C-alpha cells in the first residue's frame, strides 16, 4: 500500500515526541527508520500502525484517511523489539491467530501457517509453546505471525536488537529475501547504520523527534544533508573538525592542509567544518595522496578484527580505523592519514556543502 503521512506530530503532555513530518512510502518499498534511542522511531511507527493517534496531521492509506481509525481495522502487521507472542498458545496457534480472526477456512490457514513457518525455519516447533523456544526462534515466530497476515504494511521495530550477534546476522540476511515479495510496504526501525546499509531500500534518518533526511539509503549515506544526519548515519560517528576553506585547500586549525579534490573546488572561501569517516582516516599510509594528521592517543577500541583509535586533535576527538588488533600506548603522539578525496565539507551551521563523489569512488575501489 501507499502510506502517506501529512505533517504528523505527536505530543505527550508537555513533551514533543515527534515534530511535524511528512513522508510517503511507496507500495512494495523497503524503508529503514534510522535513529538513536529516543529519536522517535517507535513513536513514528506507532502512528503508522494506528496504535496511537497523531496530535496533528493525517495518515493516509492508499489515499484514504485512516487517522484515528482503530488498529483492528487497519491493514498492518507489526513485530516488536521484545519477542511478543501469546504465551498460552502453541507456535502454530500463534501464527494462525491473525488468519483465524480474518475468518479464513481451516485448510487455507493450515497451508499458510506451514508455509510461513517453513520459510522462517520454525516448522519443527509448531506444537511447542513460545516459552519453549530460544530467543531467535521466538522472534521468528513473531515475524511469521506478522508475515502470515499478508498486510499491506509491515512494521518491524528493531526486531533483531535482542538477539545475539550471530543470530542477528543470520536472520538479517534472511529477512531481506523474505520481504522481497514486492507487495508489502515494509518499515524497519534500527539504531545501527550498518544494518540500514545492509538492508538497503530507502532510509529516513530521525534525530530527537525530527526527520533529518529521507531518500535512497546509499544516497543518504554518501551525501548526508547535515552534520547531525552524518553523525547518526555513521558508526563510529563521523569525525568533525573546524577548518578554513581557501581556493583549493582546506586548512585545519593546527595548520594541517588538505588539497581539495575536484568535487570540492569552487567552494566559497571561509570557515567551514570538515567531516571524515573513521574508515577514511587510517593509521597506515596506504598512498602518497593521504595527508597526515597528528594526534595524541586516548583509547584503542578493539571491535572484532578492527581497532578504532581515538585521538585528541586540538579541541576535537578523531577516530581512526585500523585493520587488525593493535594497541597504541595511551598519550603517545601518532599520525593518522586522511584521504582528501573522501572528505565532506559542511558549512559552520552544519549543512552539507560538498560530498565526495561516491560513484567515482566506488569505481576506483573496484579497480
Amino acid at each position, binding site marked *: 500500500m501507499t502510506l502517506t503521512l501529512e505533517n504528523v506530530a505527536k505530543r505527550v503532555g508537555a513533551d514533543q515526541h515527534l515534530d511535524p513530518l511528512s513522508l510517503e512510502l511507496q507500495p512494495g518499498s523497503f524503508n529503514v527508520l534510522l535513529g538513536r534511542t529516543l529519536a522517535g522511531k517507535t513513536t513514528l511507527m506507532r502512528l503508522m500502525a494506528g496504535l496511537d493517534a497523531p496530535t496533528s496531521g493525517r495518515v493516509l492509506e492508499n489515499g484514504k484517511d485512516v487517522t484515528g481509525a482503530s488498529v483492528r481495522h487497519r491493514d498492518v502487521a507489526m513485530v516488536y523489539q521484545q519477542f511478543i507472542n*501469546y504465551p498460552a498458545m502453541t507456535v502454530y496457534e500463534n501464527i494462525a491467530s*491473525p488468519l483465524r480472526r480474518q475468518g479464513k477456512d481451516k485448510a487455507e490457514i493450515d497451508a499458510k501457517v506451514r508455509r510461513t513457518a517453513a520459510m522462517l525455519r520454525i516448522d519443527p516447533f509448531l506444537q511447542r509453546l513460545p516459552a519453549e523456544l530460544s530467543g531467535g526462534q521466538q522472534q521468528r515466530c513473531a515475524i511469521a505471525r506478522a508475515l502470515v497476515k499478508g498486510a499491506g504494511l509491515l512494521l518491524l521495530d528493531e526486531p533483531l536488537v535482542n538477539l545475539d550477534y550471530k543470530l542477528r546476522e543470520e536472520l538479517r540476511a534472511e529477512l531481506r529475501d523474505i520481504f522481497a515479495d514486492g507487495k508489502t510496504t515494509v518499515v524497519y526501525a534500527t539504531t545501527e547504520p550498518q544494518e540500514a546499509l545492509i538492508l538497503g531500500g530507502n532510509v529516513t534518518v530521525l534525530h530527537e523527534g525530527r526527520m533529518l533526511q529521507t531518500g535512497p539509503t546509499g544516497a543518504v549515506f554518501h551525501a548526508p544533508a547535515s552534520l547531525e544526519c552524518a553523525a547518526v548515519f555513521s558508526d563510529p560517528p563521523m569525525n568533525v573538525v573546524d577548518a578554513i576553506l581557501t581556493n583549493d585547500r582546506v586548512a585545519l586549525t593546527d595548520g594541517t592542509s588538505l588539497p581539495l579534490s575536484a568535487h570540492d573546488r569552487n567552494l566559497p572561501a571561509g570557515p567551514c567544518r570538515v567531516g571524515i569517516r573513521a574508515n577514511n582516516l587510517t593509521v597506515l599510509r596506504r598512498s602518497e595522496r593521504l595527508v597526515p594528521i597528528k594526534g595524541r592517543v586516548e583509547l584503542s577500541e578493539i571491535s572484532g578484527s578492527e581497532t578504532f583509535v581515538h585521538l585528541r586533535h586540538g579541541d576535537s576527538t578523531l577516530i581512526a580505523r585500523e585493520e587488525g588488533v593493535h594497541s597504541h600506548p595511551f598519550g603517545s603522539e601518532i599520525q593518522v592519514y586522511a584521504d582528501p578525496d573522501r572528505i565532506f565539507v559542511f558549512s559552520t551551521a552544519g549543512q552539507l556543502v560538498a560530498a565526495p563523489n561516491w560513484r567515482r569512488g566506488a569505481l576506483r575501489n573496484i579497480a
Partner: protein
Amino acid sequence: MSKAATASAAHALAPGALASPANIRRSSSRVSGKTVILIGYIVFLMLPIYWMVNMSFKTNEEILSGLTLYPHAPTLRNYVIIFTDPSWYSGYINSIYYVTLNTIISLTAALPAAYAFSRYRFIGDKHVFFWLLTNKMAPPAVFLLPFFQLYQTVGLFDTHIAVALAHCLFNVPLAVWILEGFMSGVPREIDEMAYIDGYSFPRFFTTVFMPMIRAGIGVTAFFCFMFSWVELLLARTLTSVDAKPIAATMTRTVSASGMDWGLLAAAGVLTILPGALVIWFVRNYIAKGFALGRV
C-alpha cells in the same frame, strides 16, 4: 575452608552427582539438625489439627474421661450425624453456596477493574486504587449495622446473595489488587499485538489475556474463597435460618445435655477440608498471591 569451597562448587556444578564420602557425611549431619527443628515446628503446628481430627473419631465419653492420644473406641457417629441431620449439612451447603457466589461475583467485577487499573491512566486512578483497600482497614464489625439495616429494608436478609454481596466489600478490592499485580506483569505489547491481529476486546480478554493470567485468577479465587469461608461475623448476623453458615451452626451446639464435643470436632474437620483442597491446587502461586501478584 578451601575444601568447603571446593565441595560447594562441586555441588553447584553437579547437584546429585558423585560426591566424596566426606561431603556426604557432613551434609547428612547438617540436614539432620535442620530436620529435627523442622519436625518440631511441624508437630507444634499440626498438633491442634491432629487433636481435632482425633476428637472427631472419639465418643463424648472418651473425650471427657481423660487424655487419650488416639481414639480407643473409634466411631463415625459424629460424621454420620453431620451428613444425615439437615440442620448440620445445610450449614455446609449454605456456606459453599454463598462462598461460590461471592467468588464468582468478586472475580467478575475485579477482572475488568484490575485491567483498567493496570492498562489505563485516568483521573484519580492511583487514589481510587489505593482507597479501594480502605474497606480492609476497618474491622468488619463496623459494617455490621449498616448491612443489617439495609438488607432488612430491601428484603435481602437471610439470603445467600446477601452474605455474598457483603463479602464482596472485602473481596473485590483484594481481588483487584491481586489481579492488577498479575496483569501488570503481562507486557502491554501483547494487547496491542492482539488488536493488530484483529481481536475484539472481549475476545482478546477471554481467549488471550485470561489464559495468560490463569495462575493469578486461581490465586484470587482462592483468596476470595478463603476470606468468605472463614468470615463469621457478617455471615452470622445477616442470616437466621435459610442461609445459616456452618460456622454459625457450630457455635450453637450447646444442648440441654451439654456440649457435644465430638460432633463439634467433626464439623471442624469438615470445615478445614475445602480450604485444604483449594490450597492444594494453587500451592505454587500462593506466595505470589500474598504479595498481591507483585513478585
